[in-house]
């Protein structure tokens, strides 16, 4: 009651997440750059519009790709106790989410193509509210499976219809 600050969740995500975020954002920027190059070649605009736009894209992309993964890695954290799941995510905009274990409806893991390359998985914990899924990105596969297992057992023990 008197304490008025929330500590960060205990666990960092796997360090390989940095590489994963880098590759994923790089892929996104490559798509944008490719589209720009195609337009550049196809339209043959006389002005220097295209080179300038392209240079801006490259600059923003470099800044994003070099800063975002490090920043994200410092922010992304998670913790699961007997009573609650607590996550922290984001980088520029950050969000902390807390949900009681008793109100958990589903726990599932997902592995996208890039995550598979790095042996990572993400865990999504949903509650009855459409606004509150907790996502933990960048866990090592084994750690993700263990977490799902653990939460499933605890959720079943809690019972109730979770609304």
């Amino acid at each position, binding site marked *: *009651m008197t*304490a*008025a*600050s*929330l*500590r960060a*969740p205990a666990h960092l995500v796997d360090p390989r997440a940095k590489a994963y975020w880098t590759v994923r954002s790089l892929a996104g920027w490559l798509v944008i750059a490719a589209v720009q190059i195609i337009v550049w070649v196809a339209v043959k605009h006389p002005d220097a519009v295209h080179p300038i736009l392209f240079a801006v894209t490259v600059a923003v992309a470099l800044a994003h790709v070099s800063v975002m993964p490090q920043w994200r890695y410092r922010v992304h954290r998670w*913790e699961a*106790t007997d*009573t*609650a799941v*607590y996550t922290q995510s984001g980088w*520029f*905009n*950050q*969000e*902390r*989410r*807390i*949900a*009681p274990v008793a*109100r958990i*409806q*589903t726990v599932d893991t997902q592995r996208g193509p890039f995550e598979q390359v790095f042996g990572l998985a993400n865990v999504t914990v*949903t*509650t*009855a*509210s*459409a*606004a*509150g899924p*907790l996502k933990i990105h960048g866990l090592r596969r084994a750690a993700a499976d263990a977490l799902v297992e653990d939460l499933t057992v605890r959720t079943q023990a809690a019972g109730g*219809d*979770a*609304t």
Partner: protein
Amino acid sequence: MTVPAQALDAAVRQDGNWKRLSPRMLLVHPVIELGKALPAIVGAFLAGHGSGNDSSGSRWSLGIAGVVMAFAMLRWVTTRYRITPAQVQLRHGLVRRQTRAAPLDRVRTVDVTAHLLHRTLGLARVSIGIGTSDRKGRQALVLDGLGAERAAALRSELLHRPADAAQPKQPTQPVAPAEVELARLDPAWLRFAPFTLTGAVTGLALLGIGWRIVGEGHVNIGRLGPYRAVADRLEEWPLAVDILAVFVAVAVFVAVASTVGYVLSFTGFRLTRHDGGTLHVTRGLLTSRATSIERRRLRGVELSEPLLLRTAGGARCLAVATGLRVGRGAERGGEILLPPAPKAEAVKVGAAVLGTDAPLTVPLVAHPLAARRRRIARALAGAIVLGAAFDAAVLLAGWDSALLSVPGAFVSVAVALGYDRYCSLGHAFVRGYVVTRFGSVVRRRTAVAADGVIGWNLRSTFFQRRLGLTTLVATTAAGRQKYSVADLADADAVRFADMCVPGLLEPFLT
């Protein structure tokens, strides 16, 4: 009027077979679908005439009408439902067969609607709200087209089941429950109707339909008599008079349309509470609508005051209930507990529903001054972008340079708006309700029961962190799914969350 629930119960459960909806729907579906396809049909007809070949237009439009009607009837043929002891099941689709099921003990709301056409044929549409988080099953299960008696009986059967299967003491009572009237439409409330702006939506919809007919039929609107007359008149007058005339015309149209809309939606409005605490709302002139909200699904109420309505001293009262997602799908509007009415009345009804008036009347805790800076800065940023775009357009198009000063008005409106948005911010925790107020264009004061809060999100943008602010979001399975307390001081956000739901944050506090 009502078939005893038990009789229906027994009949339904003996015969677990799939049933069709009322065959009278064969008359309803084609008419409704034709109505929806009307712009295309009219368009095809006009296009045919325009092309000079007189008969092709009528042939095309008849063809379209035929196909639409066939599909509409097919819908009835392929749809079946059944009620088992545990579930309501609905099966439909020809190519892609779908079966949807609603567990009876998860039924949260039952909404019985009857459009004009339904009513003349003695039919009603039952939509059953189940608040699962399963994304596909999120929308209500809709039985479109049961006999009206059947629909009413089904509603009481679904809602007045014993609250818990483990308590068989109280068998399903035949429903003749005592009811308490909480509110009834007062014709004097009609004075708030023009301030609701619902007419603007109607106007836009009409404009859209007209646009489609014009577009698909390649009509040259310049040749239409009334349009020409108006356009000529406007060309004669000076610009300022034109603007004034158009403004007045739009305002009058919106006011009249809003009033008509109010009358159509809320004639016969009644809010009652039945024995088990279930709330019933009935309303509607042409389309009658009856919504039931079970007590254990009700998590709170919301007072909403759109800007215009607020200046007129009015407010609406909405229910915050699980299974009633605000503004979504078939249940749209099902959450209304009181149409636009004097604010005092809205507070009274809200208090009656909650059982205490404190959450709606208690003075709220104001937010830090940094929040005011942020509200105004955000509004200003929008106004500056808009103003720059406007000025750029003026310069590029070479319009009168006097127009360049218009963004000045944007900026002053933005400051006023930002200031008012700050004044709206407030929160409190009273009698087990989390109360939060937010918004200027639509100011909402929401009271959500703390035990309906199923998690907290604490959000902070880069700029909020610099100001030491946090937006606290209470997530819930009811209503809008999340209710925000915007821009609290970091420490206050944590303290407030901890106070509302004791224990949850405890392990993470330092």
